[in-house]
């Protein structure tokens, strides 16, 4: 059975304090992995797609990396506006079915 686990469930950081979020997965027929950001009461916002082990992508203070069994979202010198829930979603098989983790709730305090 396909499984996705994100850790930690919640993370509190001081502004400027770098950290990493983890996404571990067991998915058959993996084709790639998405990262989304979700603000309270809103729909997920696309951040990155990763396709192969070793791939890295960056956007402002965020960098996503991918291995065969997990993905990391590194946040460098975060700001309060980075506070949100970060969702990872491997996808597989026909029709690109996404399997979402429960997310990591990030709070960045001034």
């Amino acid at each position, binding site marked *: 059975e396909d499984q*996705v686990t994100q850790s930690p469930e919640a993370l509190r950081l001081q502004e400027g304090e770098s950290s990493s979020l983890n996404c571990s997965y067991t998915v058959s027929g993996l084709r790639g992995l*998405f990262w*989304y950001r979700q603000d309270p*009461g*809103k*729909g*997920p*916002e*696309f951040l990155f*797609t990763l*396709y192969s082990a070793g791939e890295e992508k960056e956007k402002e203070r965020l960098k996503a990396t991918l291995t065969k069994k997990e993905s990391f979202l590194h946040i460098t010198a975060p700001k309060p506006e980075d506070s949100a829930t970060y*969702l990872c*979603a491997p996808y597989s098989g*026909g*029709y*690109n*079915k*996404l399997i*979402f*983790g*429960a*997310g990591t709730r990030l709070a960045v305090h001034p």
Partner: protein
Amino acid sequence: EAEVAQSPRYKITEKSQAVAFWCDPISGHATLYWYRQILGQGPELLVQFQDESVVDDSQLPKDRFSAERLKGVDSTLKIQPAELGDSAMYLCASSFGEAVKEDTQYFGPGTRLTVL
């Protein structure tokens, strides 16, 4: 910038009533998805359309939920009758389709359903 549109944004209903949600995908997107997201969890796929055809509805509770995309553009998700456990955020997403390698799913703002 093109966006996925959903309405209503909020819906409060009593159990046993019928509710309906509407979604208009990004123009040109052949694939449309309906997800349900319970508070504190990730979205779970309910149904996926390729044009007007259902390609995955394995997680759709078919005794009370129905979805249609008659002309392959906008879509409606219906619940009848609503139950207390249906309280959740209902998200619509769209993408170009599986033939595109980077087939990114773009999400709408969601409909927050509360069943009393």
